[in-house]
């Protein structure tokens, strides 16, 4: 980061100086999360979720590698191997429950992290690359989670795989051959399970790589802040270490408390009981639903029930479902407002909350059977969802009259407390 007042890395120990001349990793860490990275001093707790997401990723990788020591990816024994983990492996039940609930926790954290971006304009210039990389990370997470859920080879594993791989069949011309190529067969089976295991192990490390780029892309212009006003002087910032290490440490503690409460006292709350039944290709469960974090997108998929021109309903649903995430890529250019933060955008703020309500409706409908009234509710919510990004955001950002912005972060912080005086950060 190129703020001129940033603390400089000055190793005092001779070994650290030796290291710095040959492979400056300590310098990299110092400048990324140490005292060398100045951060706006007014960040609120919505900014803690990025660090928390990194903790989630670490937990998933560690528990995942450990589970992979005991899991068998063959369709004949996969389900049994998971029961072996739960019953025979030392602490296996804990590893499995932490991994499963950790995945849910990961998605909670990431949704809050993304919605923070929507509200505070984190996707706007000069942070477009941070945003684009973030959407890529989200897509990779969804692929990883989907494949991971298939691995226990329960009823929901199998039928979820059937539905989602079946979507590829909707693509005109190449759909069927593509689907069979992906599956290595005509339906999810041993071939699909084995390759899902391989890819499920691989993708988290791809995610790590993209996260590194994501953080690099953030640290180049520096962090945004709740006012959206850029950093102007030294009094606007504090060094990441110790202030935000401490603050992030606190929320990581709170997060682990919640994860522990879920893991130890309600480990199957967020799961579907049908996944404790071994996969049976001959018997379809009454209601096939994915894990809760996919419900909004599942609702969009199922909202399309009518054919339109030469697009059949299935294809429309698929396009809309992928489109609902791909549209986020265009947000920096759909939103034309020069003001970043919704704090100072009264009209945009209202529509942000309507979007949150629409997503809540989609979430709710996604977990329900594909019957009325949930179908019409999904359709209305989907309509709003796309209208929000394609129509409302561009128009509102052009015509809106924002509130007056504070001159600087320092001014915004001081204004809140009449008697405050800023002492220089140590």
């Amino acid at each position, binding site marked *: 980061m190129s703020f001129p007042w940033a603390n400089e890395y000055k190793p005092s120990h001779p070994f650290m100086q030796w290291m710095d001349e040959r492979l400056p990793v300590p310098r990299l860490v110092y400048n990324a999360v140490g005292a060398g990275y100045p951060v706006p001093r007014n960040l609120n707790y919505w900014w803690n979720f990025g660090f928390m997401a990194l903790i989630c990723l670490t937990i998933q990788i*560690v528990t995942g590698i*450990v589970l992979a*020591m*005991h899991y068998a990816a063959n369709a004949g024994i996969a389900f049994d191997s998971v029961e*072996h983990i739960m*019953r*025979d*492996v*030392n*602490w*296996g039940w*804990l*590893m499995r429950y932490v991994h499963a609930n950790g995945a849910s926790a990961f998605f909670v954290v990431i949704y809050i992290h993304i919605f923070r971006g929507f509200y505070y304009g984190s996707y706007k210039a000069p942070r477009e690359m941070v945003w684009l990389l973030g959407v890529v990370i989200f897509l990779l997470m969804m692929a990883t989670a989907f494949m991971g859920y298939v691995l226990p080879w329960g009823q929901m594993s199998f039928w979820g795989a059937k539905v989602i791989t079946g979507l590829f069949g909707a693509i005109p011309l190449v759909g069927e051959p593509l689907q069979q190529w992906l599956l290595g067969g005509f339906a999810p089976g041993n071939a699909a399970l084995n390759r899902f295991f391989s890819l499920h192990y691989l993708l988290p490390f791809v995610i790590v790589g993209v996260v590194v780029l994501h953080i690099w892309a953030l640290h180049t212009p520096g962090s945004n802040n709740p006012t959206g006003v850029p950093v102007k002087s030294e009094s606007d910032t504090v060094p990441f270490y110790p202030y935000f290490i401490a603050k992030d*440490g606190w929320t990581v*503690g709170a997060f*682990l408390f919640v994860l522990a409460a879920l893991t130890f006292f309600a480990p199957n709350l967020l799961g579907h009981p049908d996944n404790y039944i071994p996969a049976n290709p001959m018997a379809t469960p009454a209601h096939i639903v994915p894990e809760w974090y996919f419900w909004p997108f599942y609702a969009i998929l199922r909202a399309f029930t009518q054919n339109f021109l030469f697009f059949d309903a299935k294809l429309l649903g698929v396009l809309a479902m992928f489109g609902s995430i791909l549209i986020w890529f265009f947000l920096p250019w759909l939103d034309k407002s020069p003001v970043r933060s919704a704090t100072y955008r009264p009209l945009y703020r209202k529509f942000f909350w309507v979007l949150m309500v629409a997503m809540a409706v989609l979430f709710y409908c996604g977990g329900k059977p594909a019957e009325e009234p949930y179908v019409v509710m999904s359709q209305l919510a989907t309509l709003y969802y796309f209208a929000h990004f394609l129509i409302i955001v561009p128009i509102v950002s052009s015509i809106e009259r924002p509130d007056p912005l504070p001159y600087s972060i320092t001014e915004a912080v001081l204004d809140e407390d009449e*008697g*405050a*005086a800023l*002492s220089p950060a*140590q």
Partner: protein
Amino acid sequence: MAEEAVTDTPELAAGDGVRRRDFINLAAVSAAGVGGLATLVPLVSQMSASADVLAASSTEVDISAIKPGQSIKAIFRDQPLFVRNLTPAEISEANKVALGDLRDPQTLADRTKEGKENWLITMAVCTHLGCVPLGGGEGEPRGEFGGYFCPCHGSHYDTAARIRKGPAPLNLEVPEYEFTSDTVVKIG
């Protein structure tokens, strides 16, 4: 409170007492450290033998049907096992051998349980290169010393399954076992 933050100097003279912030810092880092160590325990322990492996690490053998002079072969930890009921003649023959004559000196008493010297329980793995010796089944050759005979390279074991002739360096291994009753032996 604001006064303290602005006028408090970072350098404290020694003996001024622990500052609140230092106490909180130390307590938090210590708690995190204990948490970290506690997290490590399951991660390391999960690699140790799981319950099903441990369950297979013990085998119970019913010896009620084995008459004096008979022996059976069983499986213990995926390897063959000899359970033999020695005749009184076999026992006295074993006890007559001088320890100095043995490559791997052990008495029969060393290799059996007190009060149960007729029960000879050994691994059926030749200590040379691992073949299964003959002599555990009906009609099999028992070698020059009346115990077991390994056909691979000609190792001869006596009635106490001790090596007497041939390339094997050690007596047939006696695994850990105990009599859970007069008719059942738990090996391992």
